[in-house]
């Protein structure tokens, strides 16, 4: 999923006729000062990062004057923001959204996702806006409505009535109906995986406004969503994950110290589970996929070893279409190119396992090669602990 920044999502909302607060993106405290002057204080300054939970983490501030806006901006910009969703390392804030303040009467939660149960897009909404949906689900599950949409007909009038009723709008509130159907339109037209506005607010003047806006785009649809692809701020992603993507490797950084390299997502997760079962902690998820070449295997090692906390590596390959001997070639290539300074346990099974083992035995580097995955997992945990 490709996440958009709030200010980007709001621009799209606006272009479809959904009201959002007037505001502009600021890259510097000076920008913030100028924008605040133009809008007329008080203004709201919101850190633009690809993670929720900004409010509690100090990423959303009100400034009563333009000078105060500049001051607040200088406090936030360039600093790491650690929220419940960023992980402990946090994300550096490089952009702020400076917006007019709005007189809020009531806050609503509204989102559209792909509902895996019905296999359709579904609206999730709640009159208990402002909180994270997980929180509402935990504390007020009866305050959540789920409304799956038939894609062939779109949102039907009975659903608009049900949503309006549940969210406390008058059934004839045309603006609410317009927002429901328009957000669904954006969801479909932009190939979204998620569209969320939390809160959607009922203003003191009776109108509706999207105070927050989140959009995630289906990365598999980027070939036909070139405009959305351009909005992707890659500085928000983990550099190792981006690097892996280039080589069609699937990589996720975790908090442990045992590097993992496996072919296949399911087997990768099962291998991580096994390491954990034997008392170890995986440092990453790394699926080398069904088309692994010596080059991508070598790249995988490089990415794993970029993480200084890695103490040992487990390679688990079930050779099917991916032949074990080619994986072995890759491993040899890796130790030649990269400084592999931690012990490596290897389990190979399936196609050309024997050939692979003899390749590895000839290598100048000493690998722990095993037949049995359980033994290999135990071994790597032992290696990591003794390293």
């Amino acid at each position: 999923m490709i996440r958009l920044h709030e200010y980007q999502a709001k621009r799209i909302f606006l272009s479809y006729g959904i009201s959002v607060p007037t505001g502009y993106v600021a890259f510097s405290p000076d920008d913030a000062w100028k924008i605040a002057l133009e809008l007329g204080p008080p203004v709201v300054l919101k850190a633009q990062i690809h993670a929720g939970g900004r409010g509690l983490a100090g990423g959303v501030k009100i400034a009563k004057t333009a000078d105060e806006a500049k001051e607040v901006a200088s406090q936030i910009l360039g600093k790491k923001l650690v929220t419940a969703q960023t992980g402990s390392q946090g994300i550096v804030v490089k952009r702020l959204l400076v917006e007019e303040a709005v007189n809020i009467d009531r806050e609503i939660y509204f989102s559209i996702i792909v509902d895996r149960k019905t296999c359709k897009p579904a609206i999730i909404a709640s009159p208990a806006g402002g909180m994270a949906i997980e929180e509402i689900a935990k504390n007020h599950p009866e305050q959540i409505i789920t409304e799956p949409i038939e894609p062939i007909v779109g949102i039907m009038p009975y659903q608009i009535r049900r949503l309006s009723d549940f969210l406390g709008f008058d059934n004839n509130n045309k603006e609410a109906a317009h927002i429901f159907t328009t957000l669904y339109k954006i969801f479909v037209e932009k190939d979204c995986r998620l569209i969320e506005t939390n809160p959607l607010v009922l203003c003191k003047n009776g109108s509706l406004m999207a105070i927050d806006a989140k959009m995630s785009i289906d990365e598999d649809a980027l070939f036909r969503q070139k405009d959305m692809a351009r909005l992707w701020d890659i500085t928000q992603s983990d550099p190792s994950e981006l690097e892996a993507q280039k080589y069609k490797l699937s990589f996720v950084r975790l908090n442990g110290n045992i590097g993992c390299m496996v072919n296949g997502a399911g087997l990768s997760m099962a291998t991580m589970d096994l390491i954990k079962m034997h008392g170890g902690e995986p440092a990453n998820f790394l699926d080398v996929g069904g088309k692994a070449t010596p080059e991508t295997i070598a790249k995988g090692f490089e990415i794993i070893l970029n993480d200084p906390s890695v103490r040992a590596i487990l390679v688990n390959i079930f050779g099917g279409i991916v032949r074990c001997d080619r994986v072995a070639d890759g491993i040899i290539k890796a130790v030649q190119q990269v400084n592999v300074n931690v012990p490596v346990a290897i389990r190979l099974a399936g196609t050309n396992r024997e050939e692979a083992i003899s390749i590895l035995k000839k290598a100048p580097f000493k690998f722990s090669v095993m037949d049995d995955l359980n033994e290999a997992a135990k071994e790597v945990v032992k290696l990591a602990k003794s390293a």
Partner: protein
Amino acid sequence: MSVCVNESTKVVVQGITGKEGNFHAFQCKQYGTQVVAGVTPGKEGEEVAGIPVFDTVQKAAKETEANTSLIFVPPSFAMDSVLEAIDAGIKTIVCITEGIPIMDMIKVRTVVKAEGVTFIGPNTPGIITAGEAKLGIMPGFIFKKGSVGIMSRSGTLLYEVADQVTKSGLGESTALGIGGDPIIGTDYIYWVKLFEEDPQTKAIFIIGEIGGMMEEQTAEFIQSNIKKPVFAFISGRTAPPGKRMGHAGAIIMGGKGGAETKIKALRKAGVTVIENITEVGKTMKEKMSKG
């Protein structure tokens, strides 16, 4: 007996002149599958591994009586290929393609259901009836005719489990990947029903993973509908929430789809859940020799 595909299945490979399609069409044919036709628009008259290529599925089906399609086209063409196959009267579709836009799959699923088509995938290694027919990219040699019906959201985990099941001596009736995407054509329940009815199948193995609620729904179904012994393995207990673990479908979102609740639901339904992936063969052998 077996489920869905067998030695009389006649396969048309869509996207046969691509690198993947070409390689695997040959592999499937080598395994003994009746691969009777290939389709790539504009390549009619060519041959791939002795298989005649046609411009359209309609023509391929007419000339060769192909009744099942195996799809290898790139993701942006996948919806078109699926609908072309349905239009040509193909009733079973195996879609290997990974990376199809989710909105396309939502639409395809509606058509598939309305037209009564069996759709396997997308993002699947395919389906194999050991010793009869292989429609997919799995290594054929790890499967051996036997009594266990296996289904999986993951490819290599399917191989890992099948390998152990084969080595345990039980072997497989039919094994398949239902697909690693969030929206797939047929779910576990669809296949559990077929395995329950299939006389060759004596036990059912479900390979699940984090993401979605499918394992929980299946557990509920099993409890009241399935008499055969069911085994399961769920991967992803160490996966963090909000992160996509390779498969587009393997993601814990909004606090839902974690491994523990799946394991709990399956156990509650009487399913034998194996926690250590390396103990699949051993556990099944023990349980099945007792029963």
